[in-house]
């Protein structure tokens, strides 16, 4: 190890001990909740379904998933280590007390303050007021706020309804749009897809539902903000987005949780359906509580995300910036069924302290001339382990299909690990698969060059890391890109010199 790196490592230790990295979203909201006691059996599944006043078909669907889950074993193949999860010690439902609010005015002010504190405005008026003075077409974002197990508010519903766009909580969708839910729920991620997807299917509490009708461009960005607040609960949200023929929607997802010493489980399922000529852009900035510098606490983020490009020329694009969670274990994937459909995956995953990440994507090419692009940037610092795992499969029907994959890893400090596990499977000659991966450290030359020009080491590393991630950031919606870059910078604070 060079002197300079040593210096860096020293700074890591020193700065870190002094300040630690501030996790600004780590507060707890004192609010009365309606929480199921810990434990999981058929009665709990029925109770969740009952609390949400679901129709019988939904209860049956959940019970079927529960039965399948009971016969499944916990998967162990990921490059992550954690003690066995006691599924009977988790509470599967927690909601702020009281009837579901009919409008924003009925939402508990304590909750509204929580979201304000997190920088998520739920007041449409406030937002609109701002717009009056700004440009007419300033971007607006409709937000669905999910607090523990339930959706507490969805903004801009009327504006969206004018365009025919349905944006509501999953519970509402089950009531109001059962035909769409029945048709598509579980169609992309089937109940027995994997252990955590089966668990989610049985106990999912809430999440967002989006339907964009034919030839409609959703008039604003849609966003869901997930917040875990209660202790010893798991969050199991379920999101379903359907873009009908020729539709376009951009969807953003953010998440935070309080700082606690226990690990909390977050096992979500996200399903995207793109029909012919439709496009879905799904962006995530994941900032769940990562645990403290000794590796205590933090969220286990075990998520199944998958999109189906069902129609011709459809497109699904995943962008993720992963900085939080004690363990991240997810592979946002695309099944490219429609001819000429396009799948994209852009990812930045930053791990530090004792964080572990095993993340990547699966691109399954089924239709002819389908194309996929994968760009993954992994940054490991501290004593963390960061793995890219991805699979590109060319099925026999995917004539003329193409994939390009680039995954790069950056190492900061000598006690972390960076790993790459790509699976390439091709069954036809006319498909082309290209994969490249590199691993390196922040080079001493680059740092030296910056320092020569009077740039502080910390600032220099942030700049280098930012440049390293540029290919991914440029795919994010503007405001999100700024937030992501800032988040990365904050996350790197104290992790580098």
């Amino acid at each position, binding site marked *: *190890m*060079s002197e300079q*790196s040593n210096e860096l490592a020293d700074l890591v230790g020193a700065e870190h001990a002094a300040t630690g990295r501030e996790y600004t979203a780590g507060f707890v909201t004192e609010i009365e909740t309606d929480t199921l006691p810990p434990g999981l059996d058929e009665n709990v599944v029925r109770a969740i379904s009952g609390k949400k006043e679901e129709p019988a078909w939904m209860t049956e669907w959940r019970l079927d998933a529960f039965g399948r889950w009971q016969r499944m074993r916990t998967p162990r*193949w990921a490059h992550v280590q954690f003690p066995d999860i006691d599924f009977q010690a988790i509470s599967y439902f927690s909601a702020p007390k009281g009837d579901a609010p009919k409008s924003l005015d009925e939402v508990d002010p304590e909750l509204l303050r929580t979201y304000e504190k997190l920088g998520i405005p739920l007041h449409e008026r406030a937002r609109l007021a701002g717009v009056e003075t700004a440009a007419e077409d300033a971007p607006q974002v409709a937000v669905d706020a999910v607090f523990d197990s339930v959706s507490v508010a969805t903004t801009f519903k009327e504006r969206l309804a004018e365009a025919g766009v349905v944006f509501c909580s999953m519970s509402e969708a089950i009531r109001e749009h059962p035909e769409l839910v029945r048709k598509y729920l579980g169609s992309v991620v089937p109940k027995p897809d994997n252990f955590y997807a089966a668990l989610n299917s049985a106990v999912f509490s809430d999440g967002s539902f989006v339907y964009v009708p034919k030839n409609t461009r959703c008039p604003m960005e849609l966003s869901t903000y997930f917040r875990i607040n209660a202790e010893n609960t798991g969050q199991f949200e379920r999101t379903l987005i359907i873009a009908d023929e020729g539709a376009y929607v951009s969807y953003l997802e953010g998440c935070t949780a309080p700082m606690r010493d226990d690990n909390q489980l977050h096992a979500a399922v996200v399903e995207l359906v793109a029909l012919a000529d439709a496009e879905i852009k799904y962006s995530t900035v994941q900032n769940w509580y990562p645990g403290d510098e000794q590796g205590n606490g933090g969220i286990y983020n075990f998520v199944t995300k998958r999109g189906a490009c069902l129609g011709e020329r459809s497109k699904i694009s995943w962008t993720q910036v992963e900085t939080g969670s004690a363990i991240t274990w997810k592979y946002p994937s695309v099944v490219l069924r429609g001819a000429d459909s396009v799948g994209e995956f852009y990812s930045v995953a930053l791990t530090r302290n004792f964080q572990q990440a095993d993340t990547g994507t699966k691109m399954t090419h089924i239709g002819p001339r389908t194309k996929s692009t994968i760009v993954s940037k992994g940054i490991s610092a501290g004593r963390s382990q960061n793995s890219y795992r991805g699979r590109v499969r*060319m099925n*026999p029907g995917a004539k003329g299909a193409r994939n390009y994959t680039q995954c790069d*890893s950056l*190492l*900061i*400090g*000598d*006690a*972390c*690990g*960076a*790993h*790459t*596990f*790509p*699976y*390439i*499977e*091709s*069954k*036809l*000659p*006319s*498909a*082309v*698969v*290209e*994969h*490249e*991966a*590199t*691993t*390196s*450290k922040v080079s001493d030359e680059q740092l030296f060059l910056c320092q020569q020009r009077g740039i502080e080491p910390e600032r220099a590393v942030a700049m280098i890391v930012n440049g390293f991630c540029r290919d991914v950031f440029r795919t994010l919606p503007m405001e999100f890109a700024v937030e992501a870059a800032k988040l990365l910078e904050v996350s790197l604070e104290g992790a580098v010199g």
Partner: protein
Amino acid sequence: MAGLTLNAGSLAEALLARGPASYAPWLDRGPHLELIEQRALPELRSEAWRHTNISRWYQTVLNGNESVAQSRRIEFAGAVEVVDFEESRAAELLELRGDELYQLSAHPIAALNAMLLGAGVAIRVPARGGRLHPVRVVDLPASYQRILMIVESGAEAELIEEPSPFTHRLVELVVQSGARLLHRRLQAASPHRDCSLVAVRVEANANYELAQLSLGGDLRRNDIVATLSGESAHVTLRGAWRLDGTRHLDNQVAVHHDAPGGTSRQTYRGVAGGRSRAVLNGRIEIAPGAQRSDASLSTKNLLASDTAEVYAKPELEIYANDVKCSHGATVGAIDEDAVNYFRTRGIDGQTARSLFVRGFLREAIDDVETARRLGVIQ
């Protein structure tokens, strides 16, 4: 045993009933026996056997390979010491090897090699032996074979494995500090099912170079484990394959950088036609503290038919920060534009394709004569 379908469990039963081979009784078969007793042989569809149906190989395990050679044939000259595993001197050479060169738990079928061993040869290339003629292993007279070679400090040696039938072959190589070993493995097309494991330790400033040409088998699996155990060791692995018909070739390669300053270069080029299946899993592992490691892997594959399959999995597992690692993998078809370019210059399509494949494979092969003899290139 013919007609009996064996899985990992029933094979273990049969092996325990039969007991270890009587060949080279001095060999410590304890850990191997234990592995079989603990039923730790790989099951069908285990991760390491995703693309090779191990039960097809299990079917051949007890009967062995009927076309195996009748006698030992090894060609060498000069000061090289060659002894049979039956001789007590082999035990001394094994002592010289030191620790196991591979982890039995990662390569459990090597336990079958120990249990059923029928032919083994230990080779020592003495230090300061001067430049030596190649050691050519032509035939070993049993289905379960073992080759141990120790290249002592500063010596320079060449080992050639000629195409020869077996069911399992274990090759253990130690390249002591400052020594150099050039290893050529030639695998002709085979109607048989065979597995082999090459495990090599490369010590400080030593150099190990492998060139492997293969046409695949009814089932063929090549495991290679190279460990750079000393500072500034160097490893070069090159592999080329050309498969047709229903040939199967599964390459599982792991390069471990255990010491600082090591370099490794891996280059693989393969063509899969007919209904064949080609697999390359190439892992680079950089241990904590193995700073200034420089490792790269490149694998390129051509699919020459609609029914052939290619699986590539280049992996990086890195636990040190001052490293330079990269891998690249491609799968595609012969570039028809390139073929058309040849045709506009009066070279017919078939010749053009053949030239193209040849040029492609030559990126990984330097020994064109052997490649031609084996039919890897035309």
